[in-house]
C-alpha cells in the first residue's frame, strides 16, 4: 500500500516533468521558428556590404554580426546541450572569468561551509549558555531580536569596509545569516529540556560537564539540528546574492556573469544547479536530524 503510493507519486512527478518540458518545447520551438524565418528573409543584420571597420565597430557595440544569434528563450534541447557542455568539463580554469561549473560551485560551497562552521562555533555554545540562564536570555533577547531580521546583505558594506576583502566579506555574510536561527533554536532547545531529566541528573549529583554533554545536549539536539537546517537553507539562499555583489568567483557570480553574456542557457543551468545543491544540503541535514531524534 505504502510502496504503491510512492510508486504512484513518482509516476505523477515524472508526468508533470514531461508535460512541463513538453510545453516548454512547444512554446520555444515556435519562437525559434520565427527567428529562423526572420534570418532567412534577411531582416536581421548581416555582414554584406560592410567594411572591416564597420564590422569591428558593430562588434564593439555588442552586435556580433557574424555569429548566429538566438534572441529567443532557449529550448529544452539547447538547455540539454548546455548542461552537457558544462558538465563534460566541470573543472577547467581559464583565468578569472572562465572557470568550470564545479570550481564555481566549490567556491560557493567553501564560503557557505566556512561561514556556517564559524556560525556553529559561536551560536551553539552561546545558545547553550543563554538557554541555561533565564537572566542572560532575557538580557540578550532584545539585541537578538533587532539583529535577527536584518537582511544579511545589508551587512555587506560594513563587512567590506572593515574586512577589506570581498571573499572574506562573503563568508562573514554567511556567518551573520546562519548565526540567528541556530542561536535561537539552541537556546530554546536547551531551555526546554524536560525538568524530570534535569532532576534525574541532580539526584545523581552529575557533574555539570557530564550533565551538559550527556543530558542537555542530546535532549536539545533535535531542536539544535532544526536550527542548523534552517540556517543552512538561508545560507545557501544568501550566498548566491552575496556572490553577485562581491563578484570574482562562485555560482552566484557565474550566474550574473552569464546574464551579462546574455547566455540564458547558462543562467537557467545555474539556476537549476543552485536548486539541486540546495536540495542536497537540506537532505544531508534532514538525515542528521533523523539521527539525533529520539522517540519518547
Amino acid at each position, binding site marked *: 500500500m505504502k510502496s504503491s503510493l510512492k510508486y504512484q507519486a513518482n509516476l505523477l512527478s515524472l508526468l508533470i516533468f514531461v508535460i512541463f518540458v513538453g510545453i516548454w518545447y512547444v512554446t520555444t520551438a515556435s519562437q525559434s521558428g520565427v527567428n529562423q524565418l526572420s534570418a532567412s528573409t534577411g531582416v536581421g543584420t548581416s555582414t554584406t556590404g560592410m567594411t572591416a571597420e564597420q564590422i569591428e565597430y558593430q562588434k564593439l557595440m555588442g552586435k556580433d554580426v557574424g555569429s548566429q544569434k538566438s534572441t529567443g528563450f532557449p529550448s529544452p534541447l539547447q538547455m540539454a546541450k548546455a548542461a552537457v557542455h558544462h558538465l563534460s568539463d566541470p573543472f577547467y580554469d581559464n583565468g578569472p572569468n572562465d572557470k568550470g561549473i564545479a570550481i564555481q560551485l566549490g567556491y560557493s560551497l567553501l564560503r557557505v561551509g566556512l561561514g556556517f562552521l564559524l556560525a556553529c562555533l559561536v551560536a551553539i555554545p552561546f545558545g547553550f549558555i543563554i538557554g541555561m540562564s533565564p537572566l542572560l536570555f532575557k538580557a540578550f533577547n532584545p539585541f537578538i531580536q533587532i539583529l535577527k531580521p536584518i537582511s544579511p546583505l545589508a551587512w555587506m558594506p560594513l563587512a567590506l569596509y572593515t574586512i577589506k576583502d570581498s571573499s572574506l566579506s562573503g563568508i562573514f555574510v554567511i556567518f551573520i545569516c546562519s548565526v540567528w536561527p541556530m542561536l535561537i533554536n539552541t537556546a530554546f532547545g536547551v531551555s526546554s529540556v524536560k525538568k524530570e531529566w534535569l532532576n534525574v541528573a541532580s539526584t545523581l549529583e*552529575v557533574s555539570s560537564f557530564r550533565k551538559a554533554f550527556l543530558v542537555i545536549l542530546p535532549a536539545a539536539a533535535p531542536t539544535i539540528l532544526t536550527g542548523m537546517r534552517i540556517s543552512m537553507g538561508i545560507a545557501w539562499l544568501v550566498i548566491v546574492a552575496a556572490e553577485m555583489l562581491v563578484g570574482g568567483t562562485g555560482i552566484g557570480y557565474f550566474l550574473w556573469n552569464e546574464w551579462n553574456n546574455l547566455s540564458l542557457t547558462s543562467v537557467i543551468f545555474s539556476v537549476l544547479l543552485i536548486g539541486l545543491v540546495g536540495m542536497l544540503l537540506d537532505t544531508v541535514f534532514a538525515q542528521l536530524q533523523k539521527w539525533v531524534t529520539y522517540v519518547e
Partner: protein
Amino acid sequence: MFAAQPTSKSGNHFLQVQGLSKYYLKTKPIFSDVNFEIDKGEFVCIIGHSGCGKTTILNVLAGLDTASSGYVFMGGKEVKGPSLERGVVFQSHALMPWFTVRQNISFAVQSRWTDWNKEQINQHVEQFVEMVGLSHSIDKKPSELSGGMKQRVGIARAFSIQPKMLLLDEPFGALDALTRGTIQDELMGIVRRTQQTVFMITHDVDEAILLADKIILMKNAVDSPSGYKPGGISQIVANPLPAARKRADLHHLQGYYDLRNHIVDFLIGINKTV
C-alpha cells in the same frame, strides 16, 4: 483501634522530618507542621488527595524542592539539595530516551562510582537489570519497552546506586492493574531482601497496605468561611499485618478489612469536610 503513633521530636531515627511547611501565600500554607520519622529498613507510604502536598514533601526529602520552613535530617545530617544517598523513582519513569536501558543505568552507576572501570560498571548494571527481570531487553531503547518495563528500569536505576533511602513518587500510577500487581510483588521482594528504607507516595490503598510498615494519611488544606486550615498529617497508622504478607492472600489476613476500611473512611471523610 489504630492509635496514632506518638510523634517524638527527639530520638535516633534514620530520617526525621520536623515542622515542615510549604506556602506560596504566607497566610495560606499548603501544609504545615509536618512531623514524622522513618527508621532504617522501614517502608513508609503516604496517602492523601491530590493537592495535599505529598509530592512536595517527597521533593523536599529528595532535595529537589525546598520547604518554606522546617527541617529534614537524614542520618543526623540536614538534607540540603539532592544527593546520591537518596534514590528517586519518578512518576513518569524519567528515563533518557536517547540512552538504552544499559546506558540509562550505567549513567547512574558511573555517577555514583566515578572511579570504576567499564567492566565494573557493566557487571553492576547487568546485576540490577537482572534483578528487575529485564536482561533480555538490556540494549533496547526505552521507546521499545512497555510502560511497566520502563518503570522497572526506573526502579533498577534507583536501586543501582545503592542509596541509603529510596523515594518513590507514585511509581505505578500510570500502569494497568495487572502489571502493577506484578511490579508491586517484585518491589516488595527486592525491598525485603535489601532491607531498603523506602518512602513512597501512592493513591492505592491496597498498595499501601501490602507494602508499607507505616502509612501516613494526609489531609488537604480547607478554605471555608470560618477560616483557613492548612493541610498536613492527619494520622500515622502502623500496619499490623504480618511482614511476610503476599498480594494474593492479603484479603484473607486478619485485620486487613479493618485497616482498609479505616483508611478508606478517612479518605472519604476528608472529602466530606471539604
